[in-house]
């Protein structure tokens, strides 16, 4: 065990993956000698050479196009998009190509070796273009897997699983926690399962669901509720596509109430999918409407970021309303 922040855990996972398999190749804007603007790829070029860890030109559609081809060839491509806000120029390569590669070729070819890492989320005074949580744009895309870790331990185990997964994975890193989240992380190789949610706190009164950086906020809200005698069950989805309906449904069968929270805008956000699925699965068990606590239906703001974000107080209020429904 070692104490690591999330960046170190990610760096460590990449290091292990590259050391183990020379087919693993990391690239993206500024990931070479500089180690990435957040330093997630620090020292990898030094250790594994320029051929396996390198800067690309500044072109996201090219990075993912290149990555798709590289993965189709049989390499294990780990591409970094500098900020999730800048993933959209690569949207066509991801949604029309990455996601459909295996299916359209009848499994003659696949890009299962591809992992796309990208930092997402707000809370860093980043404004419109350094704060977005674009997960819902990808969870509507069969063929992709979408994974989001909440802390350093999860980040390392899930990233190693993503890199070795036989399907392409979009790995969203909560950048607000890059340095803020610190924890014990095994130094050796380990993997955490993709597709399985984790119940991180058990409770009987209400189910709280989220992922990534939002788990911290949700846990804080759960503590506030606890003080009021409300026992919350807290679930980290970890994997949004596919997502673990069973674990969430089991919880709601027990609690009869659910709140889902994410930073992205309400309309069309992934909380809608979860609410729609659970109201169907758990219809007769629901004691109050499923509530979504999310960002507003606006672009991400800057100065009024605090007001915009679905923080612990907003979730706590939603819990109270749900329980008092």
């Amino acid at each position: 065990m070692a104490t690591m922040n999330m960046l170190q855990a990610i760096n460590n996972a990449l290091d292990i993956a590259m050391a183990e398999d020379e087919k693993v190749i990391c690239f993206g804007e500024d990931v070479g000698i500089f180690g990435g603007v957040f330093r997630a790829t620090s020292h990898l070029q030094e250790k594994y050479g320029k051929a396996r860890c390198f800067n690309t030109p500044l072109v996201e559609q090219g990075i993912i196009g290149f990555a798709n081809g590289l993965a189709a060839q049989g390499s294990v491509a780990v591409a970094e998009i500098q900020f999730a806000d800048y993933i959209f120029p690569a949207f066509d390569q991801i949604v029309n190509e990455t996601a459909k590669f295996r299916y359209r070729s009848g499994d003659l070819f696949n890009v299962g070796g591809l992992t796309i890492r990208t930092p997402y989320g707000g809370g860093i005074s980043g404004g419109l273009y350094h704060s977005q949580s674009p997960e819902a744009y990808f969870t509507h895309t069969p063929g992709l897997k979408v994974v989001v870790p909440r802390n350093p331990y999860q980040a390392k185990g899930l990233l190693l699983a993503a890199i070795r997964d036989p399907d392409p994975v979009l790995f969203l890193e909560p950048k607000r926690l890059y340095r803020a989240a610190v924890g014990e992380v095994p130094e050796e190789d380990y993997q955490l399962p993709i597709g399985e949610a984790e119940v991180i706190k058990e409770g009987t009164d209400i189910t709280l669901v989220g992922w990534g950086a939002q788990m911290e906020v949700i846990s804080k809200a759960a503590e506030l509720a606890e003080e009021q005698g409300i026992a919350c069950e807290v679930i980290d989805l970890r994997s949004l596509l596919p997502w673990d309906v069973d674990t969430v449904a089991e919880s709601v069968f027990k609690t009869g109430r659910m709140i889902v929270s994410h930073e992205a805008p309400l309309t069309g956000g992934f909380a809608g999918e979860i609410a729609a699925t659970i109201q169907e699965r758990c219809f007769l068990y629901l004691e109050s409407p499923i509530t979504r606590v999310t960002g507003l239906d606006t672009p991400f703001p800057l100065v009024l970021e605090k007001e915009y974000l679905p923080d612990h107080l907003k979730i706590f209020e939603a819990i109270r309303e749900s329980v008092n429904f």
Partner: protein
Amino acid sequence: MMTQYVHQPSFMTGDEFSIETFCLLNPDGELYEGAEEPALTREHARKLYQAMLATRILDERMMAAQRQGRLSFYMQCTGEEAAVVGAAAALDDADMIMAQYREQGALMYRGFSIDEFMNQLFGNELDYGKGRQMPIHYGSRKLHYMTISSPLATQIPQATGYAYGQKLAGEGHCTLTFFGEGAASEGDFHAALNMASVHQVPVIFFCRNNGYAISTPSTEQFAADGIAPRAFGYHMHVIRVDGNDALAVYEATRQARKIAVEQNQPVLIEAMSYRLAAHSSSDDPSGYRAKSEEEAWRVKDPLLRMQRWLAKKGWWSDEEEATQQETLRREVLETMKRAEKRPPPPLESLISDVYADVTPALQRQLDQLKRHIRRYPEAYPRGAKSLDLTLSSATDSQGEA
């Protein structure tokens, strides 16, 4: 590169230099003066021509089949057979080809059988693509031919990535990617060429400049003298070649491959040709171009040129031409009959290959669909067949459980 300093402002436009077109055979199939014949054996040259011919005949027959309503859609390579087959013939058979959609000639050259073509065109149970893509979206793993994808130009940066992997693998292979002059307008084109030159990737970018992107003439596609001068923006080797001259295409590609594989450098080839047929079976060119323009190009038919050259060498005869045509036509027709009768891919193919393993959620969706089809088999003849349901049997009438 050291730049020179000047003190009078002057603007360049590209008119300062010109890019020539490399050709070896004139329309009569004779070598131009000063032209050198590439070192092609009789066998190789015949194979090249035969693939061109087979492509032409396949295209004619299948377009006719489409008109008869036997096929939903078709696209011809007609007029561009020299460009695509000539290029394929200059590669190692294990080099990867990543094509746009109009390059069935390259696949034909590599030995994709008429059966294999037909299975894809009819999307039957033997189609490698499991009936998921429209006709002409071929692919073959064993022939190193990447499955075609409709979104234009996406394969170009993919070719750069694929070739980068080949370079690291160190087995001396390269990737050739075909694309149209229209597709070259996409952002992916720029990304691909720039990354290839920066990362010194053994990839050949083969542009078929056939004058049109559906109805859009190349004059409304770009203002420059073709696609070739774009190479200068990447300090990339470039050559322009007469795309109707199979020998010149072969030789240009052979040399390009040498540069790619031996120097780990990308190369751009621009083959000048013309799309003799409609864009696809859904298109009617009379709305946007003159018949006379088509006629002018018809006399430059790449098949005739190659055939004449072969005949002059004594490597091909009129009789052979006639028998081959006859045999190919028959084969296409017979194979088509077989292929269209084959059953469609099984219902399971709806959910397989989305992921490496079928997810539980998808399995549930399929199970639900199966229950539904069992209820209404007449409404889903293909699904019902796949479930072995007898259609005439007593099934629920609508709305009764």
